[in-house]
């Protein structure tokens, strides 16, 4: 329902500050007496750390403090769904991907800090590196986390899949794969933290949910929630990446140790190596369809590579499964989704959250079916598209606002208006 203001494109409220360069992003925050922080990342994707030698690094002029896990024995893991991710990996512990952190280095300038990081010497024992989720699922594969490499399994079973395939005139099987995708938020990760007089840690760093970030930082450090305050600066792109704790926890640890404001800015390279990715997924789809194009059965196996840590993975991968038939009504659906650890950079939320990956698979499958049946792909879609009263693979009945057919019709019209010719 349009109103006097709703439904109209008013000037965006944040645009003026951004076009003038006045909007302050975390990178733009400065404080007197501020220190700079960078972290040392893992030298290898899967290894047990034996020794971290800081002597030469500490001798670099301007270095104020280097923090390792040994300084913080009480530090707990963090994570959005499972608490499986360490902010620091200590002696005798495992690094699980090349973005894991071994030391937090704090100094007077970024240049000095970077210099010191290069002078930290690490000794480690290499373990088998698993980069392929299918290898990770094999019995004899080394386990990346003690509970095993399969983080979780989700199931879907609607209607009667056996009957669905019996009713089919054509059964089509295909496997599809998607890749690791990086968000490329235009602002690399950055933040500034201070320690207030009452010991509250204030953190200015972009996040997609500051209250949840606060809780995760607090629980990892064993602090009461109210001792962490998160303030949102301007956000230089997110796309899901800024759901995970990125620099916030390291900053919080650092300010508590040095009791001076601490700032960090990741390099683009570090941001790409150490922060979340879109889950690569494997889809195995077996689809049953009648000659006239009516879908009768859809069987799906989904395998998602969540990398070294679960992050949002358990939710992302099964969202891919739950959306496996797309906007099409299919009475019989069965499927299973596996979320799997590997030693790749951890995968988390990214725009579409599993539904993006699965759409590539089901829309490819629909086109393949259309060709095999000799039906126009648009007709095949219109024939099966949801309408009010349809049920999703989860068995959810759709009551209203099911505009999928209209989107197809309107898109075709617009395309033809522009001079496009379909098929």
């Amino acid at each position, binding site marked *: 329902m349009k109103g006097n203001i709703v439904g109209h494109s008013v000037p965006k409220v944040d645009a003026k500050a951004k076009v003038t360069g006045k909007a302050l992003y975390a990178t733009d925050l400065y404080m007197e007496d501020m220190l700079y922080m960078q972290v040392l990342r893992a030298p290898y994707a899967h290894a047990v750390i034996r020794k971290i030698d800081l002597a030469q690094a500490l001798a670099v002029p301007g270095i104020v403090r280097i923090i390792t896990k040994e300084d913080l024995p009480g530090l707990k893991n963090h994570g959005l769904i499972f608490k499986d991710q360490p902010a620091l990996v200590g002696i005798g512990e495992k690094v699980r991907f090349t973005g894991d952190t071994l030391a937090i280095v704090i100094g007077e300038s970024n*240049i000095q800090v*970077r*210099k010191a990081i290069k002078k930290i010497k690490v000794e480690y024992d290499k373990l088998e590196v698993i980069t392929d989720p299918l290898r990770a699922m094999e019995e004899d594969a080394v386990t990346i986390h003690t509970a095993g490499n399969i983080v979780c399994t989700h199931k879907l079973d609607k209607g009667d899949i056996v009957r669905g395939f019996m009713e089919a005139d054509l059964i089509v099987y295909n496997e599809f794969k998607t890749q690791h995708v990086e968000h490329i938020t235009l602002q690399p990760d950055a933040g500034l933290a201070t320690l207030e007089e009452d010991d509250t840690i204030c953190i200015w760093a972009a996040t997609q949910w500051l209250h949840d970030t606060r809780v995760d930082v607090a629980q990892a450090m064993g602090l009461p929630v109210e001792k962490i305050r998160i303030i949102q600066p301007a956000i230089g792109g997110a796309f899901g990446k800024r759901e995970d704790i990125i620099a916030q926890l390291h900053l919080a640890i650092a300010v508590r140790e040095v009791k001076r404001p601490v700032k960090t800015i990741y*390099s683009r390279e570090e941001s790409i190596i150490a922060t979340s990715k879109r889950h690569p997924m494997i889809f195995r789809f077996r689809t049953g369809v009648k000659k006239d194009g009516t879908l009768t059965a859809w069987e799906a196996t989904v395998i998602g590579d969540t990398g070294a840590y679960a992050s949002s993975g358990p939710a992302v991968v099964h969202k891919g499964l739950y959306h496996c038939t797309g906007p099409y009504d299919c009475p019989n659906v069965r499927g299973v989704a596996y979320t799997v650890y590997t030693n790749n950079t951890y995968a988390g939320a990214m725009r579409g959250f599993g539904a993006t990956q699965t759409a590539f698979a089901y829309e490819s499958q629909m086109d393949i079916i259309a060709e095999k049946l000799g039906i126009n792909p648009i007709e095949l879609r219109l024939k099966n598209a949801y309408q009010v009263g349809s049920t999703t693979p989860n068995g959810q009945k759709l009551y209203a606002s099911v505009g999928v057919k209209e989107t197809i019709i309107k898109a075709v019209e617009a395309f033809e208006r522009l001079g496009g010719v379909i098929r």
Partner: protein
Amino acid sequence: MGIIGFTSRRLNEALQYLHQYGDETTIIAGGTDVLVKYHERLDELHRVLNIWQLEELKSIRIINDQIEVGSLVTHTQLEDSTIIQQNAPLLAEAAGSVGSPQIRNRGTIGGNVANASPAGDTLTPLLALDASVKFVSLDRGEKVVSLEEFLVGPGRHIMKKDELITALIFPIPKDNTVGAFVKLGYRKALAISTVNAAIMLGLQGNLIEDCRIALGAVAPTTKRAKLVEELLQGQDVTKSNTFEILGQLEKDIAPISDIRGSQQYRTDIARELVTQGLQKIVNKEVGRSGR
């Protein structure tokens, strides 16, 4: 400690500096290669000689039957230069395909040559134009060496640390010559070439009288395809057997597999790009070189 910077405003001053400190000096002009290479480790540099302000190296001139391009001429200048557009449009096109406007505004032709990237986009047209590099040192004076001899490996050239490139020189192409530049990158801007190719043909009617083909990113240096050049001599550029000769191109190249393409793909693409370049020439989609 810390690095030492020096800006020189006269060529002689720069040469003196290099004479004294060449071994420990990194030369910086537009900075588009040096600051990438030393990103986050500028402290590892010892001396930096800034030559950006050497105005005397910033012009494009016709001297007798040659074109002399000062080493500090930027890609933008090359792209916009009437002299280059009229006499060597393939070089203007190649310069315009490099990086982005910002990079073209800073990146210089001398820097591109000194960087000696196997994929350097201006290097292939320069090779096809039969260009030479003019460089100079304080005590050994000026040398002029063909670009082909100048480049010896990825990032490597024959110049000593006390020498500085002052110009690129190439003969003004004859009236009957026509050239083309073709590049394949994985996107349309800010893309390093997977393969690039530059072609200069001297045509007598449709017959190839003279031919130079240079390829980038298919060998340790950008290089000429000498075998194919020879086979193409005397062929009719409109005939299909001319294009079949390009099947021999793989003997001229030695590509590697990397993130921008496999050995096989580069081999396929090298042939395809030269084919497309010749087609552009046949279809007269390129401006005629020469006066």
